[in-house]
């Protein structure tokens, strides 16, 4: 079978990876190698914590990816990828406990009560035992199943792995249709076409919009934090995602705009203030780089898959590309192999012309 995949973000790459394993001939189109919103993500794999602002569906997709699909994908790659499942921490200063309690109230309301084993409240001593480099006096919760992945390393590894297995076309695509992909010069024919263009697919997803995110990379040799940490503050929300060798990613803003310009002074001040508040030693960290990108987001902030004859478009991964991407890829493979009745998440699937599907 011949597949044309348009868009080489995490979704396009994972689909290419799975299809080559099935022995398909894959062509991957993307005009801007490595300049996509997947490269600017932080690789936070925190399905429970995402419940604060999202549907239970994202939690289910995320848990499945963390426990089954990521280990399976990583086992098939030649290099060892930085991937941790040591849990994550949600913290606040005792004065801001209302923020923490509100968060717990929301996720408890959304989660099935028998899944409550997924997190536990920590005493200050337990926090210090777990992460000695977090400043004393914080209170918080421990989310046992969560983790993080080095998504930049993963994307580079995937790309190298696929290099001699798929045909890369560094071309801007004008139209994506069943059986064909059209560029300015040429028309390419395939048995199946997969549209993973993100914000480029506005013609197919009428409620698609962009949410800008900004991220700061720090190198802090004096600070050792193992688990992703989210800090709640009445004004600034911060997450810190550890990487190998004392590198930490601080994120992330959420701004309703399609603006790819450099990080703003305001975001830098907010993120660094919150980080300093969590650990004053981070004042001596070095800012390695900053990143800005725009997340493709649908009105309900959930992913959506459109399908018609030999055509699949997947979009709206918002800030959850690495959290849910592998589960979506598996779901799409199931659809191709066994049809609609085999799907685990039929609520994600819509016909392209079904305008009702754009409503909720």
């Amino acid at each position: 079978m011949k597949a044309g995949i348009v868009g080489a973000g995490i979704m396009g790459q994972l689909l290419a990876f799975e299809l080559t394993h099935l022995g398909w001939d894959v062509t991957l189109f993307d005009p801007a190698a490595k300049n996509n919103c997947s490269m600017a993500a932080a690789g936070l794999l925190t399905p429970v914590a995402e419940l604060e602002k999202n549907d239970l569906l994202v939690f289910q997709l995320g848990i499945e990816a963390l426990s089954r699909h990521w280990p399976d994908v990583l086992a098939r790659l030649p290099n060892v990828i930085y991937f941790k499942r040591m849990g994550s921490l949600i913290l606040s200063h005792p004065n801001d406990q209302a923020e923490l309690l509100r968060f717990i109230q929301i996720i408890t309301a959304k989660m099935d009560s028998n899944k409550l084993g997924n997190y536990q409240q920590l005493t200050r001593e337990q926090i210090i035992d777990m992460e000695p480099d977090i400043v004393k006096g914080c209170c918080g919760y421990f989310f046992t199943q969560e983790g993080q992945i080095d998504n930049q390393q993963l994307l580079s590894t995937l790309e190298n792995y696929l290099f001699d297995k798929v045909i890369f076309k560094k071309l801007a695509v004008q139209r994506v249709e069943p059986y064909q992909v059209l560029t300015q010069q040429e028309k390419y024919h395939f048995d199946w076409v997969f549209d993973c263009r993100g914000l480029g697919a506005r013609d197919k997803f009428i409620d698609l919009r962009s949410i800008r995110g900004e991220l700061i990379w720090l190198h802090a040799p004096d600070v050792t934090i193992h688990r992703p940490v989210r800090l709640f503050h009445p004004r600034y929300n911060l997450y810190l995602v550890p990487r190998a060798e004392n590198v930490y990613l601080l994120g992330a803003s959420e701004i309703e705009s399609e603006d790819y310009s450099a990080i703003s002074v305001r975001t830098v001040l907010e993120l660094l203030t919150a980080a300093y508040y969590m650990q004053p030693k981070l004042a001596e960290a070095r800012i390695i780089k900053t990143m800005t990108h725009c997340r493709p987001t649908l009105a309900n902030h959930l992913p959506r898959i459109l399908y018609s004859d030999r055509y699949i478009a997947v979009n709206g991964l918002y800030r959850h590309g690495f959290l849910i991407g592998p589960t979506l890829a598996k779901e799409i493979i199931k659809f191709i192999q066994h049809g609609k009745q085999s799907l685990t998440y039929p609520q994600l699937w819509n016909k392209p012309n079904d305008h009702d599907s754009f409503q909720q």
Partner: protein
Amino acid sequence: MWNIANQCLSSRLLLGTAQYPTLDILKSAIVNSGANIITVSLRRQARDTKNNRFWDDIKQLACHFLPNTAGCRYADEAITTAELAREIFQTNWIKLEVIGDDYNLQPDPFELAKAANELVKRGFEVFPYCTDDLVLCQRLIDYGCRILMPWASPIGSGKGIINSYALAVLRQRLPNITLIVDAGIGRPSHAVQAMELGYDGVLLNTAVSMATDPVRMAGAFRDAVLAGRAAYEAGMMLERNISQPSTALLDTLFWHQEVQK
């Protein structure tokens, strides 16, 4: 129906648009709240307003946009933001916010009055977010404000009406001014209290956007504002110190009805 800034509206609830979990939830909350006026922030979220799907979607709800000057600290800054908002949102309405203290986001009365004075001259309909200080409110009226929005308590604190005496005095002393309680409302009961005081409306954001179920909470506030207003218009009984049976006790002997000393 009631009038504010020459518009005839059905709802006395004004809703903010920040911090909702998703765009769908924001839209459903606005619809369920019944609000006719929604506040929008220009400083950050709305910078890029051309082809901005977020604003285009909200515009379809046919609410009046009330842009704010959130984040401004000085009069000149607020005036510039107001001019920008007038151009972008095509309205002369402006919720004038000039913050004087970072900790509790308290309005700076001096910069606020200065900005209000200038903006009224420039043809704006100014909705000043102010404290409950009577003299400040009178000064804002002298400068041409027809609407005042005193706080119940600091923004986002959810503490409700901290000084109900001051709010009652404002209502009593400024009977011809449109008064809206803005900021600090945490629960529907707080909104009822404000409306029972005779306030013309209530403006809130966090109490709905940060609720576990924002859409249902929007409905709770819709009902609260209706209940409080209806109570005010219906004329509430006054408190008294002695209990009086609501059922006439005709068959109780009069010496048994005597007040216990």
